[in-house]
């Protein structure tokens, strides 16, 4: 997944995942349905006006259809912090590509330029531009200097269940445990911890495959005796590894 990295004037670094083409397309479809519903509703209201003033009602319908199609996304993104209804549902957000505040001109321009992104049909030009640029920017985004990021509104991770672990069989081999801590890089430790924290988000079959791969990785790094491993499932083995790598968090 492509990422957006930038540093604020205070020196804080940000690193956000950019939205994929699929998610953006889906958001666009949802927004299309919303626009369709709004226009259908407006059509119903205008049909009452058409009884007395058919010309005015038809003209209003044309102008309204044009304005809503053109400005729906711009208006929502401006007043709703870079989100439309479709983007909100899919957790996407328009941001300034350099971390600056999004301006009205940027929001308007990225949306007005959909007229070329959509050419020759089905957002082909925009899609190709997205695939061909480092920050997945369609033509409108490139001109406006904006990107679409994937927002993850996570909650604080709850690690309580792991604290209940009382016994860690790998600690029976203190020299190997020490070696494991010594040889494991911070990135590897992070992956192992993440795999456990996201346990319930993973499908059982995929989870088992990931845990087996991690066990094989750590076992290749520091081989513990076979007898120790026999009694452990891959998940339990991984918990024990994490317990060694993060001793304060997971007392064994």
């Amino acid at each position, binding site marked *: 997944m492509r990422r957006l990295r930038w540093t604020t004037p205070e020196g804080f670094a940000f690193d956000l995942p950019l939205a994929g083409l699929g998610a953006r397309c889906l958001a666009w479809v949802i927004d299309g349905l919303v626009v369709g519903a709004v226009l259908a509703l407006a059509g119903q209201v205008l049909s009452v006006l058409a009884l007395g003033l058919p010309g005015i009602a038809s*003209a209003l319908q044309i102008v309204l259809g044009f304005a809503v199609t053109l400005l729906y996304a711009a208006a929502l993104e401006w007043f709703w912090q870079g989100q439309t209804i479709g983007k909100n549902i899919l957790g996407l957000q328009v941001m300034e590509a350099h971390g600056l505040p999004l301006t009205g001109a940027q929001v308007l321009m990225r949306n007005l330029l959909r007229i070329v992104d959509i050419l020759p049909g089905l957002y082909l030009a925009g899609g190709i531009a997205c695939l061909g640029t480092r920050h997945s920017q369609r033509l409108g985004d*490139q001109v406006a200097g904006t990107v679409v990021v994937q927002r993850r509104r*996570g909650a604080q991770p709850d690690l309580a269940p792991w604290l209940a672990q009382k016994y860690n069989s790998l600690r029976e081999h203190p020299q190997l445990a020490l070696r494991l801590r010594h040889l494991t890089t911070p990135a590897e*430790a*992070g992956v192992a*911890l993440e795999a456990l924290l*996201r346990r319930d988000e993973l499908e059982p079959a995929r989870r088992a495959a990931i845990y087996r791969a991690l066990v094989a990785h750590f076992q290749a790094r520091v081989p513990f005796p076979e007898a120790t491993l026999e009694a452990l499932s891959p998940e339990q083995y991984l918990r024990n590894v994490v317990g060694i790598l993060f001793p304060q968090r997971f007392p064994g």
Partner: protein
Amino acid sequence: MILDLDRFARTGQPAWSELEALLERLEARADRRLEAGEAEALEDLYHRAAADLNRLEQGACAGTLRDYLQDLVVRAYREIYAAPRGLPWQGGRWRRLPRAAAGFGRRVPQVFRQHLRWFGLAVGLTLAGCLFGGLAVLFDPAVATHVLLPAEYLRHPAQRVAQDLGQAKGAGGRGPNLSEETVFSAELITHNIQVSLLTLALGVTLGIGTGLLLFENGVLLGAVAARYSQQGFGWFVAGWLLPHGAFEIPSVLIAGQAGFLLAGMMLRGGREPRWVRMRRQLPELLTLLGGLSCLLVWAGTMEAFFSQHHAVGGYGAQVAVGLSEMLLLAAYLSLAGRGGARR
């Protein structure tokens, strides 16, 4: 560095929770305005959360916690740096609307004059197209009219004139219909704005698409003018096109100017990084687009309600109206906003 996550989370958690609660309160407010105490708290909590996030970035950590902190920090960053927006009807903003409209009216000609060379290029390409279309019809009418003129009424001026005269006299035709003309006007306005927007937007092709569109438009204009004049309907076509064309054609040219300006912004080098320059100049593009959209509303109204009615004062009156509009527009674009010009 492997962080002691447990201690790290325990220490940071109260401040994170406080920041989260503050952000939720702020995000629920339509005007996003901060009280003095809230502003101080937000800045302090933002700095602490961002520092925590940086510590996490440098250590082995749980991605879930990093995502949580990053989300908090990004939301706080936006609240601090983004100007409070509010809604147009809040805080008496609507009262400033006439002043804003007057400012916009002065700004359009200022931006137009600032980028006059791009307008010149748009005019040049359109004139080249006119010349090509006109000469093609004059020298090879059989082929050129068929290829260059897309509709029957453009290929056969006599039919069109007879139809208009018939309508005017009520002989076999219909008189003016206010309802139909209102719809026609709305169609014209939206269609013309769409075409102008496309002309501007094609600036992203480094101006090539914009240039081609202007040339094509010129070819059509030249071919129509030549075809009608060739068959002795020059006065008719002037009376028919000028009342709305006086605003419509300059609008397309201004759209071309904006398209070339966009291409220039994308291409031009300089000390400033490209994205800084583009961010600064985007409002100028939008000012031109806004200005030409206003012109097109007038042009669409004239085309639907006036250009088609040759009997109102005859062709002479229509030509006079068209020429007056052109003079007014030229005066507006060259004189308005002088004195208060800002770059």
